[in-house]
């Protein structure tokens, strides 16, 4: 069966991380979100994939290529302007020749759920959330979709549209008729609504697992969820005197030096130098070619590839991009003194993270001098340089030299 995966958007709410790569390429548990999805699709027996790409598509094409490494066949569609989900699907219609499923490249769905949806003739994946007003709310009757209401102020149910669809080619006819929605996009939910009003039936399939990431701190939540399933394995080397507790995965070429103390779940990529004498705490993902040096503590964080936290650093509840280097003594604060919820600026608006503990989001290629202090909720753009001893907070635009 074919699957159409929407992966064209930047994910502007994910800035500064998405200045350098599209949202679907952000790593959780050491793999891009999209890779997790592709692995689940393959497990569900779906190996004929159409990726609709756009923003920085070269990163996706470069990583997945023709998909053979994952045992799937990938075809790409370039969507240079992102005009909505229905428009994205329309751009792929010339490659669709049978029933197919459609998914968002920035959600992770399990193989079991995918298989369940795929076995239906026409279906829509639904999921229950506590705060449905930010999503499309689905009204279900006798297991059939009756209506989809986009972001209602007073949601009638807690059931939301998970953005996983099973379509037959008959649905494609309705794409042409789909008009522009209130928020100015061509939306596939409108297409479905048109089909339903013509008497076409969509089954509502309840998903067991649905991981959605909207903001950078959602990556930490997703990372936590995926690390719970990590299978412990040590492919690299662990020196005598290092302590490994819980489920820890250490990939080829990595060395954990004496005196290091790691409490799983933790994943460590290839060719990392860990320690001596560092402390890595649960729910931490460390990418490839990283250096976590002496007297460094990392906790509940994503540290992307080629990044060094070499000496006397603390990083907690944070996302650190690729190719960063923290000077000795650079630390991230992750708790307000008044212990209130941490709020951060996103696209010029203050957004509540819903977390009391949240450190910083640091884009790719950031270099800090010694003893830099990064305050809670700081959003540091890519390729920022920070001079020694600075205290950094709020939003820092990409390419800035803070001195």
């Amino acid at each position: 069966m074919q699957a159409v995966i929407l992966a064209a958007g930047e994910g502007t709410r994910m800035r500064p991380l998405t200045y350098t790569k599209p949202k679907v390429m952000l790593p959780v548990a050491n793999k891009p979100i999209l890779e997790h999805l592709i692995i689940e699709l393959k497990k569900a027996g779906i190996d004929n994939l159409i990726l609709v790409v756009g923003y920085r598509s070269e990163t996706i094409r470069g990583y997945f290529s023709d998909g053979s490494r994952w045992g799937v066949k990938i075809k790409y569609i370039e969507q240079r302007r992102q005009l909505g989900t229905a428009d994205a699907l329309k751009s792929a219609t010339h490659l669709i020749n049978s029933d197919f499923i459609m998914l968002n490249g920035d959600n992770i769905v399990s193989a079991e759920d995918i298989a369940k949806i795929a076995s239906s003739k026409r279906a829509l994946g639904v999921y229950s959330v506590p705060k449905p007003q930010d999503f499309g709310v689905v009204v279900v009757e006798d297991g059939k979709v009756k209506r989809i209401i986009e972001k209602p102020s007073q949601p009638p149910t807690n059931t939301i549209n998970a953005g996983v669809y099973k379509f037959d080619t008959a649905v494609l006819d309705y794409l042409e008729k789909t008009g522009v929605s209130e928020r100015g996009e061509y939306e596939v939910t409108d297409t479905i609504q048109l089909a339903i009003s013509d008497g076409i039936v969509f089954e509502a399939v309840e998903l067991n697992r649905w991981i959605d990431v909207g903001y950078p701190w959602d990556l930490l939540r997703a990372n936590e969820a995926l690390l719970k399933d990590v299978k412990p394995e040590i492919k690299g080397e662990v020196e005598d005197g290092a302590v490994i507790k819980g489920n820890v995965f250490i990939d080829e070429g990595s060395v954990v030096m004496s005196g290091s103390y790691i409490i799983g779940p933790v994943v460590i990529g290839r060719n990392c130098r860990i320690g001596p004498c560092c402390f890595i705490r649960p729910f931490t993902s460390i990418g490839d070619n990283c250096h976590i040096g002496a007297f460094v503590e990392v906790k509940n964080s994503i540290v992307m590839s080629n990044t060094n936290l070499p000496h006397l650093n603390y990083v907690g509840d944070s996302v650190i991009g690729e190719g960063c280097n923290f000077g000795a003594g650079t630390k991230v604060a992750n708790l307000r003194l008044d212990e209130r919820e941490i709020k951060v600026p996103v696209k010029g608006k203050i957004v509540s993270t819903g977390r009391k503990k949240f450190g910083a989001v640091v884009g790719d290629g950031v270099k800090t001098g010694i003893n830099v202090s990064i305050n809670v909720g700081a959003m540091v753009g890519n390729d920022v340089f920070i001079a020694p001893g600075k205290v950094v907070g709020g939003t820092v635009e990409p390419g800035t030299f803070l001195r």
Partner: protein
Amino acid sequence: MCGIVGYVGFRNADEVAISALRRLEYRGYDSWGVAIAKDGEIVVKKNVGAIGDIKDFSLGGGKIGLGHTRWATHGKPSEINAHPHLDCKGRIAVVHNGIISNFRSLRERLENEGHTFRSETDTEVIPHLIESWVERGEDFADAVMKTAEELQGSYAFVAMKADDARLVAVRYKSPLVLGVGDGEFFLASDIPAMLEYTNRVVYLDDGESVIVSKDGYRILKNGVEVEKGIEIVPWSIEDAEKGGYEHFMLKEIHENPRVVEDTLLEYLGEDIEIDSRIFAGISDILFVACGTSFHACLIGKYLIEELAGIPVRVEYASEFNYSNPPLSRTLVVGITQSGETADTLEAMRKAKKLGMRVLAITNVLGSTATRLADHVIYTRAGPEIGVAATKTFIAQLTVLYLIAAKISNLPPKEIEELLNELRSIPQKIRQILDMEDEISSISETFAGYENMMYVGRGIGYPIALEGALKLKEISYIHAEGYPAGELKHGPFALLGEKTPVVACIVRDKTYDSMLGNIKEIKARESPVIAVANEEDDEIEKFVDYTIRVPSTNPILTPLTYSVALQLFAYYVARLRGCEIDKPRNLAKSVTVE
């Protein structure tokens, strides 16, 4: 100068061709045409005028097609002369940019062989030549290659055949880019044409041909397949659009500060990051350029001679091609925004042939100039759509300042001061842009005149030349730039109340003489606008209007004064209701001599 496009894939080729051609209109817009192949037939539609005027265009689909927007060189703009051109039977269609210099002899031969020509164009020989090779049993692609061998001149052309699923294109001395999509491919003279669909491109080189079908492409050179890398174009579609301004020109004037910043960011770190080997061991510098780039060269001459003491000559590229200049260890610098200006390219080729080291300063990556030159310095201006050069001129100047400072023999401290002031230029240009209303209100007084004179001394003189060029090309007011001291030797006869004068007065050693000239001009009753330093508090006594520009080191005034004069020309032209982005008879990049 023309724009060509080709498409093969899964979309409707007619729609793609039209949308692509719209983006190439800066290359010419006196007529256009589209052809598609469908059900074994070729369907053609041609029109006189700009594509912008067309609505609901359709040839009924077809998944392979080509298109052309024309700026006449051989044969007047007419439907018959518009491309695509066909062979006798209407089975082969060709669009072409460039000039076939041996077309007369080819046409004569083909006519003797019984071919019937319909147009006056040089292009039409191409489909007939292809036809004759196909009739001799050649495969379509081979027929195109054999045809290219018979052509002389400069060309990029795309050919298609009614019953063939391939496009075949050849490039020789005219630009051609292949756009790589997913199950679809694009050919075009320039990248904006395909940016709507893909940002993955392959730059074709001279002598290369490409055979494209919906399943893939092969690039050949001298019959041998060559592997070429795909490059990612970083421009967004919006980069090539107006971005809220009424005209591209106004948008591009407003991009001046950013352009200076980007260029400085690129080349000015702790040190000036320009390869010093470019200038190693040279005895002198020769600039070759056309139009606005020529004026940039004149300023470059002033800067380099002032700061570095190296002798500099500046030649119009079109004139250099007929001269036999004495050269020694000369660095020849070709400045061309598009990198495709035919005369400048020819001058660079000539310099190469004479064994000179050649540097290209251009705005377009992968353009012909970049491949011709030994060294390239890019101006970081982004695509410029307005035919009148604005931001690219300022970017060229910025590069020239950096070059002059790089090879300067002044004490490091003085250079550092100059560079620091250069860093403050974007802010000063922003202040000028904030004076837009003021400049616009001055322009109201002058929009009604038919003649204007721009004068300056020293570095003010090339500023005057460029100011006059801007005004004449977009407002159609006859404007002349002149060295102020030369007025007495003739042009004085033209002065009077109907001929306003723009005086570019710089606070340097020329100041007092300029003031004297202004008094003389006023005595002939010409209204005078002065472009002056904001600290100049006496100038107002002598002139009718003053455009005050933030003060800088006098040597940097071209960067500020020129922006003020760009705005002045823009507002005059707007009041006169001119087609600012597409002035009559002009094209953005002049790819014919």
